[in-house]
């Protein structure tokens, strides 16, 4: 198994010298191919900043991030766009689907940006739709779909380009519990069957319990890390809750 993501001692500071906020304070970790990693933390702990740095939406102050061996903190211009479109898949809390396009067109757009031949687009869209069980909503517009359907369409858009890494930012944040469960089950399915590497940010222990490893962040530092191993999801969930209790503070409120 090879390392997909390698984060080396990264720091991210906000503000000026007199009033410095360390959003990320020397974090290092690695993600292997085919892993499903959840990052947990209270609001303000720096988890979203971490995700923004990995997705190149934000720049690190120091340190390096390697994706499949490539240092993405050094990327600029077109290489950056290429990295975003070829290596990464994004899933957002608020779906970020284009409301003017149908589900099919939303998914196809990710391919057409990469200038994929039109002949292939249809085949690949239908294939990914089958994986995520959204064939029957393909011709609908976002406003005609439920939240869970929208998020699965967004997921389909994120994985259709066969990215090395799928980044999910609070993917269940805007979903009810039933839709959340269905979405997470699809994530699991993608991870198990198609070896999709997923890095997910959440503050919800239930969501995190679907991952194979959970990294806890507090005040910009890694606080703890637990692996699921052979445990059942229920046992893993209880273990997460224990750590959250240990973490104390705000995260409790999120439960």
């Amino acid at each position, binding site marked *: 198994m090879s390392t997909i993501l390698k984060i080396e001692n990264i720091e991210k500071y906000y503000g000026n010298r007199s009033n410095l906020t360390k959003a990320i304070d020397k974090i290092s970790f690695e993600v292997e191919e085919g892993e499903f990693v959840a990052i947990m933390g209270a609001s303000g702990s720096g988890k979203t900043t971490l995700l923004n740095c990995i997705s190149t939406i934000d720049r690190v102050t120091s340190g390096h991030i390697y994706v499949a061996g490539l240092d993405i903190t050094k990327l600029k211009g077109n290489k950056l766009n290429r990295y975003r479109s070829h290596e990464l898949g994004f899933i957002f809390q608020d779906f*970020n689907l284009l409301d*003017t396009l149908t589900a099919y067109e939303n998914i196809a757009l990710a391919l*057409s*940006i990469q200038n994929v031949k039109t002949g292939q687009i249809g085949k690949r869209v239908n294939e990914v739709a089958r994986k995520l069980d959204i064939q029957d909503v393909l011709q609908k517009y976002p406003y005609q779909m439920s939240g869970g359907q929208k998020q699965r369409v967004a997921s389909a858009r994120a994985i259709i380009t066969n990215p090395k890494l799928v980044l999910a930012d609070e993917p269940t944040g805007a979903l009810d519990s039933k839709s959340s469960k269905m979405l997470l089950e699809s994530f699991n399915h993608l991870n198990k069957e198609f070896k999709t590497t997923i890095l997910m940010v959440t503050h919800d222990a239930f969501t995190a319990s679907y991952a194979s490893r959970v990294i806890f962040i507090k005040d910009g530092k890694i606080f703890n890390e637990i692996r699921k191993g052979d445990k059942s999801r229920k046992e893993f969930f209880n273990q997460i809750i224990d750590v959250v209790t240990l973490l104390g503070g705000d995260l409790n409120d999120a439960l």
Partner: protein
Amino acid sequence: MMLCKLSLKNIKKSFKDYTIYFFTLILGVAIFYVFNAIESQTVLLQTKQSTYDIIEMMTQTLSAVSVFVSFILGFLIIYASRFLIKRRNKEFAVYMTLGMGKRKISMILFIETIAIGILSLGVGLALGIALSQLMSLLVANMFEADMTNFAFTFSKAALIKTVIYFSIMYLLVMIFNTVQVSRCKLIDLINANKRSEKIKMKNPILCTIIFLVAVMILGYCYYKVSIPDGTSSSTVKDIGIIIALGSLSTFLLFWSLSGLMLKIVQMMHKVYYKGLNSFTLRQISSKINTTVFSMTIICLMLFVTICVLSSSLSIKNSMTANLKELAPADIELTKKRNIPKELQEDYGYTDGQIDSSYKTISETLEDLNIDEEKYLTDQTTIHIYTDSSLTYATSMGKTLDKMKKMYPYLDYTSPEVIVKLSEYNKVAKIFNNETYSLDDDEYMVIGDYESMINLRNEALAEDTPLTIFGKELTPKYKEVKNGFIEMSSNHITDGIIVVPDDVINVADDSPQMEEEYMIANYKASDEKTKEEIEATFTNPELNDLYPDITLEGTTRIAIYDASVGLGAMITFIGLYLGIIFLISSAALLALKELSESTDNITRYTMLRRIGASDKQLNRALFRQIAIFFFFPLLIAIIHSIFGIKFCIFILETFGKDEMLASVGMTMIFLILIYGGYFLITYYCSKNIIKEKRL
């Protein structure tokens, strides 16, 4: 005080949204000032009295047009400000949740409007005063006055007028704003940004049917206005109906195309799923659904602009070009001759007038105490004869039916004008026209009014023989030859029949000799003496002193002044309306586009996140805005091709040789103003969607 600060900060903050609005206001103010200041500029010109009369008429017309223009600008400003307010719903929602009353919010808007109003008036007037200096050059050029003593002109009246008119407009804006604010509900304001716009797909079959219907109606309208024979006199009468039909079909065209365009491109998978094309197209079609109406308005406004600008510019050009050709002598006197006693009752002639009509022009001048030898030289006389058996009806031969259709109001029983060849040749010589010779049994036709000439040519081509004063004559030429005997500013000679001298065997006091023309030049070597002689002949007191003498005439100077003034007036009004229309339509589009870009920030950020490059995004944005700007322009240009054809037909007497140049001028205006708005819109939108790095 706090409100004041808030308002000014708001303006600063939303300057991106306001740029185009502000720009348009400044242009509006400047143009309004420039055209109202023309009066003060003409005062400075050293021109003759006759020109003054026309200038006065022109300024009066311009100020009437200004009222119309202020309506257009008023609507534009109110529309634009409503638009900008809608965009700020979220901001108002924040104020309201903080407990700010509606009255205070209105107050904020009130202060904003005042600030923007004062600023735009100030900058606009400054620009207007600067531009009006350029305008005075144009004015001088139009009236062909010398501008050796260039002076800085400033019109206080125009300034005050501009301030008053725009103050009224801003006041109306404030009232509308207050009404709008007082109507809002907090819940609507908060949800304003969350509108999940329903995308309605139109039924493609219905769209196709409507599209075909629209094309058919348009085709019918185009056909009606562009076929200049037979039907076209009815076209002039029905032009209102045709314009209404054209507008309706333009609306239907936009409506159906907005539905069809997407469907058609969607079927072309290769194009649709290439790069960001699907996104761009959806962007356009999602908006075009809601903007069909304004697109129609903009398209029609552009159409009017193109037609008005190009025909008004061409009128001035061809008028000036015509003048040298059409007024070749200094003076032409006309006298009705030999009025028979029997007609006295019918036409109400006095005894004196009838007696006087038996005298020649020379004798009449003597009666008027004007010394012909002292003032005139190169006198040339020509008489007009009529033969009651020779009317339009007989001379037109078989083409009469066609002519009746084209000119239904013409009296076909009125006799044709006949002149002697030798007399015509003398006139032709002084007018620099060609002279001719005829055999004993030949006649020829002279004229310069094109659509009549075309009809006559058809009659001549058939060798229509005519019996004139009892003698049968055949046409020497199969077409009408160019020429005229009456000086005027336009081509108005619809046909004069020239016959050999021998044919006209008419006594000097016979009623068949209807009119006498005397063409002459002034005996003067310099402009001053010329003007003195002109004053002697055009002295208005003569009419009162000698009521029995019916001597009429026209002079080169009179024709010139009237024509120059009319040309200038038409040009100025055309320019004024054209530019205002152009600005209004471009500003409407630009505002719509820019406000959408603000909405689109999230969409573009998302596209960027899934890896679309800046180049792809900018290209998508450019295409989107370009299609929005040039789609209505394209339809407007197609309309204009036929519209201008119709204008040419209407304005035929003014001549049409210069049309190409004026269409070129119009295009320059279009490219400058419309293109300018397009570029500003594109760069502003590009700025709005630019990636903001934290």
